């Protein structure tokens, strides 16, 4: 692992057994992500993007291969240590927001602190500040059902970043949003990256990935796609790189 490398996978595999058939959701994937990098993972449905994201977040366990975080393999961690890793270092944003329906926006953001040992008064203050920063101060007492899709996703982003994680995993963060809201979320992610956050974003939207991320990792059928993607490269920003870093 190079000194700049923060998160790395080596021959990562995730296979599922469906009856007598083995589904290779992820097959020998080796990637490396530097600290502070904004990486886009793109690919068609079923290409293994979300599986890779779950493995990087420690939510899933690989069939074989290794995920190293700052030189420490996640496989060496107990379930309790993995939970602590997620609580301390990981923020996650989902396509369907995954807000807790019966909590207010403020309470949803506060849940990020449930497992960090932050005092209730402090976490309420931080959550309120974060909502204010994302322009949702007047929505703090609203429940998710009273918020628009864009607002719900901003609350989800607020929940993901309020505890100041080192890594932000975003799984199709704009997938359920219209263009305007998608743009707002994309801008928000860019801004967070500008503040030094390492972001790994899974998306179908090649244009979004090309414009916002520093590097794109393409996946197909559970493997890294190293084919010719001239169209995508043309759509991407000039500094965006294509394919995986070996």
């Amino acid at each position, binding site marked *: 692992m190079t000194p700049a490398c923060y998160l790395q996978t080596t021959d990562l595999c995730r296979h599922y057994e469906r009856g007598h058939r083995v589904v290779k959701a992820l097959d020998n994937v080796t990637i490396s992500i530097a600290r502070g990098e904004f990486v886009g993972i793109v690919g068609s449905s079923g290409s293994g993007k979300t599986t890779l994201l779950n493995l990087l977040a420690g*939510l*899933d366990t690989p069939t074989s291969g290794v995920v190293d975080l700052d030189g420490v393999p996640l496989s060496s961690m107990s379930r309790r240590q993995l939970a602590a890793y*997620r*609580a301390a270092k990981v923020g*996650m944003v*989902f396509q*369907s927001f*995954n807000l807790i329906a*019966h909590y207010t926006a403020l309470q949803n953001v506060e849940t990020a602190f449930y*497992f960090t040992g932050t005092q209730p008064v402090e976490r309420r203050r931080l959550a309120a500040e974060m909502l204010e920063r994302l322009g949702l101060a007047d929505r703090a007492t609203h429940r998710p059902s009273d918020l628009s899709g864009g607002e719900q996703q901003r609350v989800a982003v607020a929940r993901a970043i309020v505890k100041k994680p080192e890594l932000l995993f975003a799984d199709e963060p704009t997938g359920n949003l219209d263009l305007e809201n998608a743009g707002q979320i994309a801008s928000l992610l860019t801004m967070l990256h500008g503040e030094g956050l390492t972001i790994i974003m899974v998306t179908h939207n090649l244009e979004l990935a090309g414009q916002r991320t520093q590097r794109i990792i393409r996946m197909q059928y559970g493997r890294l796609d190293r084919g010719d993607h001239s169209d995508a490269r043309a759509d991407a920003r000039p500094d965006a790189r294509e394919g995986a870093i070996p």
Partner: protein
Amino acid sequence: MTGRDLFVISTGNLLRMKLRTFLTTSGVLIAIAAFVAMLSFAAGNQKYVEEEYLRFGLFTTIQVSPRGGSEGADSSRGPRLDRAALDRLAAIPGVNLVYPYEAFTVRVKLGDTVLASKAQALPATALRTRFFATLTSGRPFGSDSSRQILVSDELMKKAGRPDSVLGLRAVVSVRVSTPDSGLAHVLMNRGESIIDRLRRIRTDSLGNRGYRSRTIRSEIHAAMQRFMEGFLQAQETLTDTLTVCGVYHVNRSGRLRTEEMVIPLVTAARFNNAGMSGSPSEMMASLSSGSPFGESRDASGKTFSLVTISFDPGVLSTTIRDSVEALGFRAFSFAAQFEQIQRFFLAFDMAIGVIGLIALVTASLGIVNTMVMSITERRKEIGVLRALGANDLDIRALFIVESGAIGLLGTSLGIFCGWALTRIVSMVARGYMKGQGLPEIELFALPVWLILIALGIGIGVSVLAGIYPAGRAARVDPVEALRNE
């Protein structure tokens, strides 16, 4: 996750699912209410018995009876329970009072009312024991030879003087059979004296052996018949006038009993030792004692069917009982009886506890069902919490606290409802007792230990019921839970 967070999340979820929470909690509530009400009944009765034992000083009381039988003494099977035996009993270390149970049938005239009643002779010291220290008015007599009398509230009611009898003169009379009255009947009966009978004997025929034999048998038979007639029918009446000094409430406490009147020991001796009572039971007692005439007049030879011993609280009742039995008497310890009662209540409590536990286990199945349904509905929430850093313990704790909260709520309300139920039943029961003229007894008690046990069992069983669902919740795969529909 802090305890406060767990509590807030759990109660929040319970409040959100109001109907389900209500139904699940109701199961626990009913089980605990029944459990509390039943145990409360046992505790109430236990408390009543204990209070009665304390009130009457029964823990420091032993009753002694002859080993041969309940009446008198049987020298072939045990020593006589007489005055000498009382002295030996009084000499046992720790014994502070020994007195016999001496009761006799009397007629008493209170004001204008004459009543047949039963009196009891007691030493003045006995009145200082807790059993007799329950005067409702007045004061106990001062000495054993005092010419005063204590009367019961029941006797006052019979006399139609429910109050203001203190200072009233009570004319007490006893009819006794004595050998004198029998002998007088032999000498003179229905105007015919023994001389008249002797005159009827034909002296000239006494030389005839057959006539002589018939005459002797006939005269002896007639003399015996006259003696018994005189003894049984021509009873002597002894009368004494005493002053009512106090009124007491009659105790009906098992083996210990008080009669309707209490007369000082020495004052009562006149009635008690005068002769054989006309009462069939007392007469049988006198006859079975083996000394119906001679020794009954002699106080030192009198035997007793029952003697009560009062001893110091610091002395073990078993020590006194062993000493009494070593003297050859039968001893009945109230403390030992109380231990048996305690054992009965323990078994009763356990039986009720098992029934309550069965009801609670049934209710806990409702909690399991509610929790399992909750997991199904909250899979996504579990996944989100996992993504945010919840470990297995956090997820388990979330569901265990939730089932524990159901238990706490159900148990608290159950204890209250159980208590309320006992109050209602107690009120009805007291009303019935009052209507029947019975003393009002509190049938229920809710001691702190019962509340703590109910809380412990209610919450404990609820938490146990939450363990399985909590384990299932901890095994929820976050990847599956967060997967887009």
